[in-house]
C-alpha cells in the first residue's frame, strides 16, 4: 500500500503554533525597543524619563483595551469601525448623566448606563451584520457616523465639565490617577483586560469557536457552532471594550469633550493589524494586538511630541535663541496611520502567505525557494452565479409597467414624492428660484461623487475615500493658488491630477495587490484628508482669482465675464438659475451614463460586479476594469474638490466630510447594490436627488401653529442620513436581492410555487 502512504503522509513538527505568543510578538518588541531608542535620541528630555514611558503606556492602554475587543471582531472576519464613536459617546453620555448642569446622577448609575449603551450599540451592530446581513464595514461605518452625529447633537459641540463633582466619587476617578507605584491605574485595567482576553482567546472554547468561525464559517456551522451568536458577541465585546476605554479616559480627564475618540477606530484597527491579526479572519492573538496598540501609541506620541530645535528670532536689533519643538502639521498623524494601516494589511497576503522574505532569502543563498501554496488563480476561488429573484419578472412588460420593474424606479418616484412633499409643506419657499438654485448646487456635489462611485459599486468594490479625495484636491488647488505663482488653470489641473493619483492608489491596492476595497479606500479616507489638512496647516484659505471662482458661479456670471450675458427673456432667467457646475455635472453624468449602459467598458464593469470569476474566464481583464473604476471615482472626487473651492471661494479642511455617506446612499437608493453588479446613472442621479431633497427638507424651517418655528440642527441631519443609508442597504438586500415581498405575495397567490424558487436562489 505504498500509494496510500504517499498520498496521506502526515507532517508533524513541534507542538503547533501557540495561540498566546509567537514570533510576531517578538518582532514587535524589537521594533518597539528600536523606536523608543530613536525617541530617546531625538528628544532625550521627554523619552529619557520613566514618566514618559508611563505616559506612553497610559495613552496606549485605552487603545489597548479597545484592541482586545477588536481582536475578537477581526479574528471572526468582521470589522467594527464604530469603536471611536462609541468611545466618544460614552464620554457624552456619562457627562450628561453625571454633570451637575444636566441630570446630576451618581457615578454608579452613570457607569451602568454607559455599559448598557455599549450593549445596545454592540447588539445593533451585531444584528445588522449577522441577522440583516449588511456588510460589516457599511453597517459599522454608519454606526460611526450616527454616533458622531448624536454626540454633536446632544452636546451642541460644547465641552461638559464635572471636575468638582468628581471629587465626591474618589473610588471611580482613581482609575484615571497615578497610584503609589508611580504609574497610572489605567495601565492596570489594561493589563487585567488584556490578560483575560488573551487567555479567553487562546485557551477557552469561547476563543476557539471564534477562530473556527473566522476560519471557515460554513464548516463551523456544520460542526454545530452557533456562528451567528459567535459573531454577534464579538460586536458586543468590542462595544463594551470601547465603553470601558471611554470610562478610563473620563476618569482621567474629568470632562467630556465631543472630540473624544475622533479617529480612534483607525488607531485601534491599525494596532490590531500591526499586531498580526489577519483582516481576512481566522488568525490573530490578543497579546500581539496589545503590543500593536503600544507600538502605534508610541508612533503616535513620537509624531505628536515632535523634535526639539532651537530657533533664532529677531527681537529689535538683537538675535535670540529660543528653544522650540518642531511639530508636524495637524492631519499628519492620521495620514501616517492611514498608510500604516494599509501597509500592515499587506503583510498577511504577501509576507505570510506568499512568503516573499523566505523566497528572497533562499534566492540570495542560491537555494530553491520554499514551497508556496498553489494559488491556482481564478480556477479555485469559488463564486456562485448569484441569485436575486427580483429581476426579469418585468420581462415582456411595456411602458409604465416595465418602468416599475426597473431597479431605479423607486428613486425616481421618491424624488417626485419628496419634491411634492416639500411643496406641500412650504409652498412659499419651495417654489422660489433661490431654493431650486441652492438645491441644484448641493445636488451637484453629491451627484458628481455618485457618478464616479457608481462604476466602483457596480464593480462590487467600494470607495470610502471620495469625501477625503475631494478635500485633498480642494486643498491642493487652494494652496497652489495662494502660495505659488502658478495660475488657476495649473492649480485646477494639478488638483485633478492629485485626485487621479489617489484613485490610482486605491485601484492599485484593490485590483493588483488584492486588498479588499473597503480597507484600501479606508486607508485613503484617512491619509487623503490628513494630507489635505496638513498642507493647508489646518486653516481656511480664501481669496482665489475671480477667473477661477467662475467655475462655481451661475451661468449668467460666466457669460457676463465674456461680455455675452443675455439681457432679457427666458434665456436670462435660465442663465441666472443654472450654475456652471450643474451643467458640468450633467454633462459628466450623461457621458458616464452612456459609457456604463452602452459601451463594452460598461458591460465589463457590470460583468465583473456580477461574477468576477466568470468575467475572468471570459477573458475580461478584471483587474484593469476594477482599477479604472476606482480611477474614475478619484477623478470625479477631484472635480468636486475644485468646484468646491470655486463655489465657496474658500477651502476649509472639513470639506466633503460625510460626503461618502451621501454618495453611497444615493447609489443604493438608485438601484445599485452593495454587492455589485447593478447600477444605472439615472438611478444614481435620482438617488443623489433623494438625498439632496431629504437634507433640504430636514433643514426646512417648520412654522408651527402658534407662530414659532423650528429648524433641525445640522448634526441631527447626519444622523438621519446615516439611518437612511442603513435602511437603503437593508432594503436592497432583503427586498431587491432576496425578494421577500415577492415571495410573500407569490406565496399567497401561487401556493408553494414561488417559495422553492426563492429558496434555490438563496442557497
Amino acid at each position, binding site marked *: 500500500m505504498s500509494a496510500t502512504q504517499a498520498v496521506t503522509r502526515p507532517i508533524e513538527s513541534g507542538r503547533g503554533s501557540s495561540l498566546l505568543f509567537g514570533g510576531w510578538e517578538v518582532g514587535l518588541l524589537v521594533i518597539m525597543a528600536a523606536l523608543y531608542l530613536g525617541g530617546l535620541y531625538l528628544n532625550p528630555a521627554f523619552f529619557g524619563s520613566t514618566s514618559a514611558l508611563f505616559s506612553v503606556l497610559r495613552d496606549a492602554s485605552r487603545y489597548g483595551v479597545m484592541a482586545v475587543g477588536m481582536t475578537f471582531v477581526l479574528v471572526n472576519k468582521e470589522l467594527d469601525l464604530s469603536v471611536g464613536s462609541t468611545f466618544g459617546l460614552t464620554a457624552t453620555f456619562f457627562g450628561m448623566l453625571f454633570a451637575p448642569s444636566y441630570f446630576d446622577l451618581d457615578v454608579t448609575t452613570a457607569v451602568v448606563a454607559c455599559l448598557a449603551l455599549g450593549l445596545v450599540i454592540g447588539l445593533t451592530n451585531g444584528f445588522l451584520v449577522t441577522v440583516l446581513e449588511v456588510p460589516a464595514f457599511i453597517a459599522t461605518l454608519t454606526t460611526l457616523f450616527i454616533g458622531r452625529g448624536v454626540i454633536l447633537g446632544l452636546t451642541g459641540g460644547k465641552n461638559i465639565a464635572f471636575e468638582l463633582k468628581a471629587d465626591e466619587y474618589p473610588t471611580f476617578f482613581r482609575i484615571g490617577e497615578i497610584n503609589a507605584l508611580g504609574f497610572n491605574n489605567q495601565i492596570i485595567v489594561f493589563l487585567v483586560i488584556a490578560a483575560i482576553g488573551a487567555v479567553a482567546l487562546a485557551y477557552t472554547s469561547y476563543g476557539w469557536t471564534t477562530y473556527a468561525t473566522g476560519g471557515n464559517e460554513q464548516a463551523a456551522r456544520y460542526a454545530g457552532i452557533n456562528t451567528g451568536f459567535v459573531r454577534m458577541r464579538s460586536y458586543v465585546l468590542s462595544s463594551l471594550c470601547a465603553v470601558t476605554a471611554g470610562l478610563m479616559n473620563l476618569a482621567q480627564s474629568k470632562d467630556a469633550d465631543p472630540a473624544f475618540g475622533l479617529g480612534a477606530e483607525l488607531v485601534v484597527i491599525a494596532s490590531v493589524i500591526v499586531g498580526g491579526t489577519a483582516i481576512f479572519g481566522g488568525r490573530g492573538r490578543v497579546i500581539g494586538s496589545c503590543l500593536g496598540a503600544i507600538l502605534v501609541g508610541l508612533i503616535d506620541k513620537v509624531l505628536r511630541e515632535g523634535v526639539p530645535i532651537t530657533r533664532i528670532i529677531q527681537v529689535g536689533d538683537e538675535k535670540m535663541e529660543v528653544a522650540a519643538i518642531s511639530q508636524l502639521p495637524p492631519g499628519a498623524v492620521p495620514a501616517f496611520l492611514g498608510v500604516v494601516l494599509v501597509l500592515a494589511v499587506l503583510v498577511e497576503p504577501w509576507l505570510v502567505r506568499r512568503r516573499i522574505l523566505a523566497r528572497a532569502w533562499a534566492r540570495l543563498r542560491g537555494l530553491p525557494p520554499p514551497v508556496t*501554496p498553489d494559488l*491556482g488563480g481564478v480556477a479555485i476561488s469559488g463564486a456562485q452565479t448569484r441569485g436575486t*429573484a427580483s429581476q426579469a419578472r418585468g420581462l415582456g412588460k411595456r411602458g409604465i409597467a416595465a418602468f416599475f420593474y426597473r431597479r431605479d424606479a423607486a428613486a425616481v418616484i421618491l424624488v417626485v414624492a419628496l419634491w411634492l412633499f416639500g411643496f406641500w409643506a412650504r409652498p412659499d419657499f419651495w417654489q422660489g428660484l433661490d431654493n431650486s438654485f441652492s438645491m441644484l448646487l448641493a445636488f451637484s456635489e453629491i451627484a458628481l461623487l455618485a457618478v464616479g462611485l457608481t462604476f466602483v459599486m457596480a464593480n462590487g468594490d467600494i470607495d470610502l475615500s471620495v469625501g477625503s479625495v475631494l478635500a485633498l484636491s480642494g486643498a491642493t488647488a487652494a494652496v497652489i493658488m495662494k502660495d505659488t505663482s502658478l495660475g488657476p488653470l495649473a492649480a485646477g489641473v494639478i488638483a485633478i491630477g492629485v485626485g487621479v493619483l489617489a484613485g490610482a492608489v486605491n485601484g492599485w491596492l484593490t485590483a493588483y495587490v488584492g486588498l479588499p476595497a473597503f480597507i484600501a479606500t479606508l486607508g485613503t479616507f484617512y491619509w487623503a484628508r490628513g494630507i489635505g489638512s496638513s498642507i493647508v496647516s489646518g486653516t481656511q484659505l480664501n481669496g482665489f482669482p475671480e477667473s477661477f471662482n467662475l467655475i462655481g458661479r451661475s451661468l449668467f456670471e460666466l457669460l457676463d465675464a465674456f461680455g455675452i450675458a443675455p439681457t432679457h427673456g427666458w434665456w436670462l432667467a435660465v442663465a441666472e438659475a443654472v450654475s456652471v457646475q450643474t451643467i458640468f455635472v450633467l454633462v459628466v453624468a450623461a457621458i458616464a451614463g452612456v459609457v456604463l449602459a452602452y459601451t463594452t467598458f460598461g458591460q465589463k464593469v457590470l460583468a465583473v460586479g*456580477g461574477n468576477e470569476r*466568470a*468575467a475572468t*474566464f471570459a*477573458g475580461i481583464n478584471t483587474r484593469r476594469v476594477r482599477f479604472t473604476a476606482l480611477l474614475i471615482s478619484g477623478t470625479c472626487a477631484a472635480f468636486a474638490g475644485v468646484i468646491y473651492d470655486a463655489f465657496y471661494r474658500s477651502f476649509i479642511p472639513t470639506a466633503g466630510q460625510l460626503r461618502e455617506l451621501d454618495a453611497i446612499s444615493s447609489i443604493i437608493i438608485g438601484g445599485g447594490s452593495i454587492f455589485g453588479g447593478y447600477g444605472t446613472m439615472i438611478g444614481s442621479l435620482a438617488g443623489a436627488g433623494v438625498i439632496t431633497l431629504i437634507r433640504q427638507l430636514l433643514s426646512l424651517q417648520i412654522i408651527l401653529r402658534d407662530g414659532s418655528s423650528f429648524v433641525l440642527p445640522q448634526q441631527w441631519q447626519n444622523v438621519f442620513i446615516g439611518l437612511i443609508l442603513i435602511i437603503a442597504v437593508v432594503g436592497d438586500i432583503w427586498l431587491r436581492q432576496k425578494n421577500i415581498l415577492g415571495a410573500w405575495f407569490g406565496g399567497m397567490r401561487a401556493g408553494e410555487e414561488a417559495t422553492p424558487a426563492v429558496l*434555490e*436562489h438563496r442557497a
Partner: protein
Amino acid sequence: MTTPIVDMRGIYKSFGPVQALIDVNLRLMPGEVLGLVGDNSAGKSTLMKIVTGAYQRDAGDIFIDGTPVHFKSPHESRDRGIEMIYQDFALCGNLDVGQNIFLGRWPMRYGIFVDRARMHGDARAILNRLKVDVNSVYQKVESLSGGRQQSVAIARAISFAPKVVIFDEPTANLSVTATHRLLETISELKVHGVAQVIISHRMTDIFEVGDRVMVLKRGRNVGDRAIAQTTEKEVLELIVSGVPETPTAPEAAL
C-alpha cells in the same frame, strides 16, 4: 490511425506533500464522449484543470491534435478549442442571456458601443442550434433555473466552436428532466463532432451517452473501458478497489 485530439502522457502533480496525480495518461479521440470517474480526491478535477491550463503540471506531456502544448491559463487552451463548463457555470447572474453568451466579446459598433441587436440575434441563433429551451435571450440569468443556466453556459462554450468540451459534474445540481435534456444536448454535440469529457459521480449518465469510461483512484489510472464492453458494476469495483494499470487503446472503443 487518427491522431487523438487530447493526449496526456505521464502527468504528475503535487500540492505540497500531497501527490494528486501520479503518472496519469489520458487520450481523447475526436468526437468521442469520455466519462471520467473516480472517488473524491481521485484527481479528476485536477487532471482537467491541467488540460485547461488552470493548473500547471509538475511533469508529463500534453499533445493537442498531435502538437505539444504548455497552457499557462484557460484562455490559451480556449484558443486551441478546449472549453470547460464549470459546476457553478461561471455566469454573471445580473446580466441577460445574450450578454452572458457573448461575455467579454460583445459585438461592437463604432469601436466602443455594444451592438445589442446583433448580440441578441446571434445568441438566439446559437440557442436554436443547440435545441435548448431558454425562452428569452433578454432574461437575466439569475432568474433561470439551474438547468437553463447550464444551457446558457453550454451555449456560451459552443459559440467558440470548440473541439473539446469538458463538463465538471454536469448533473450534480440538476433535476431529473434537466439531466435528461443535458444528455440530449451532449448527444447533439457528439453529432457535430465535438469531443467531450464528462466528470461525474453518476454512472447511469455516463453509460447512457458515453463511448468510454476512464477510472482514476488516488491520482492513478486504474481502469479504461469501452462502455460497450463493460458494466456499471465493473466500473464501480474499479473505483473502489482498482489497481494501477495502463489504459487500453482508446480506438478499440469506437
